[in-house]
């Protein structure tokens, strides 16, 4: 990714490296400051870089709080707000860009929720129903989730009752690790080991099932031959 517009020699002094390739360097205030400066100067590549750094995190945050519906539009709207805020000087401390983006995202979430509430209130009195967002998963996502649940069911049926109880307390009843360890008389290390084994088994079975999917067109298809 080019940092600068072609032909632009760039600012003197230190050249920033690609923040999206090395997120651990994001704490370097000079890098955030330079990115903000480039955005304000109209450098298009800096906008792409901003999206590359924050795009996935914003998408995750919005999905977690608002669901998957119309997610692309919401991510886009949030980015527009962030860019406008940067360009009009609302970001007073460029080195706090991460915190600033987080604040904008939280406000966007609140705004989307408020808008959804208002739309439902407006539609409540309508005799002919207005649009009702479909919160159901897509058919593909349902199949994937069903398969994952089946794999997990097999795993849970295959482990001891005690191990199943430990994991159930953690994932279903959301008890803390400390409480589980105290009541079930195990160390945190033992708990972590059990958890990681279950996750590894889940991943292994999932990969096995995916690799065993029907390969249409890749292999010679056989038909039933003569019966005896």
């Amino acid at each position, binding site marked *: 990714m080019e940092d600068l517009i072609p032909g632009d020699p760039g600012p003197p002094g230190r050249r920033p490296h690609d923040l999206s390739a090395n997120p651990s360097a994001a704490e370097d205030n000079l890098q955030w400051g330079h990115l903000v400066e480039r955005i304000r100067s109209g450098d298009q590549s800096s906008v792409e870089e901003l999206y590359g750094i924050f795009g996935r995190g914003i998408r995750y945050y919005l999905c977690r709080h608002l669901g998957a519906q119309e997610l692309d539009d919401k991510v886009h709207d949030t980015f527009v707000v962030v860019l406008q805020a940067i360009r009009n000087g609302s970001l007073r401390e460029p080195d706090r860009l991460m915190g600033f983006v987080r604040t904008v995202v939280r406000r966007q979430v609140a705004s989307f929720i408020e808008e959804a509430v208002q739309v439902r209130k407006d539609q409540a009195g309508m005799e002919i129903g207005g649009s009702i967002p479909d919160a159901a998963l897509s058919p593909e996502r349902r199949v994937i989730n069903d398969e994952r649940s089946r794999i997990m069911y097999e795993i849970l049926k295959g482990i001891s009752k005690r191990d199943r109880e430990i994991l159930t307390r953690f994932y279903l009843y959301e008890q803390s690790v400390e409480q589980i360890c105290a009541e079930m008389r195990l160390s945190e290390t033992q708990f972590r080991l059990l958890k990681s084994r279950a996750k590894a088994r*889940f991943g292994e079975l999932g990969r096995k099932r995916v690799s065993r999917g*029907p390969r249409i067109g890749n292999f010679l298809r056989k038909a039933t*031959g003569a019966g005896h």
Partner: protein
Amino acid sequence: MSELSPEDERRPEDLLTRRSNAACLSETELEDFLHNRLSGATRECVEEHLLVCPACLERVEEEEQFAASFRTAARRIEDESLKAAFDGPRPGAWARLGAWLKRPFGLGVGLAFVGAAALLTLAVAPSLHTQPAMEITLRAERGLAAAAGPSAEAGRPLRLNLDAAGLPGQTLELELATMNNSVLLESQGLATGNIIGWELGRGLDAGTYWVRIYHPPENTLLREFALNVK
């Protein structure tokens, strides 16, 4: 979806012990984040970090998927346990028969039923016979020939003869799956004269199934057959 928690007032001590938003999440922080147990400056830093760290985000998403699948499966197991506990242990067949015979007129009706059943059996026994397993040979076919082969009969126990010509001469893994890729049966087989025999020992419902042969070490799919059951 999760609710948006209100921002906590930043206490003075949080500024002294505040974690860096550049540091990747520990296992405990990840779990606390997903269970909405974080607050204050720690939550801010974790959320800021997740905005920019794809590695931690991937861990969070993986944990979320695992947790969601776990909850569905665990609830199903709990429902099954509750049902079993509620229904109680099922009495054996003889105990149920004994309880029924003890009812008023139960013995008389029971004897009459046994007599009638015996007469019926004697009358139709010669025509009854256990269906032997149906043998189906799955071969390599192409084009129109592939569509013209006979199908297996629904409900009849099946024995599959799988075309193993050209496959490695070692024990291979066998799999029977539905059209939706739900695995029904797994086994192992060794080719004898270019054929791997697989006694399913059961009948199948009408539909189309996949029969697959895998090479064990890497689970490499070697051959796949379509099995039509009508």
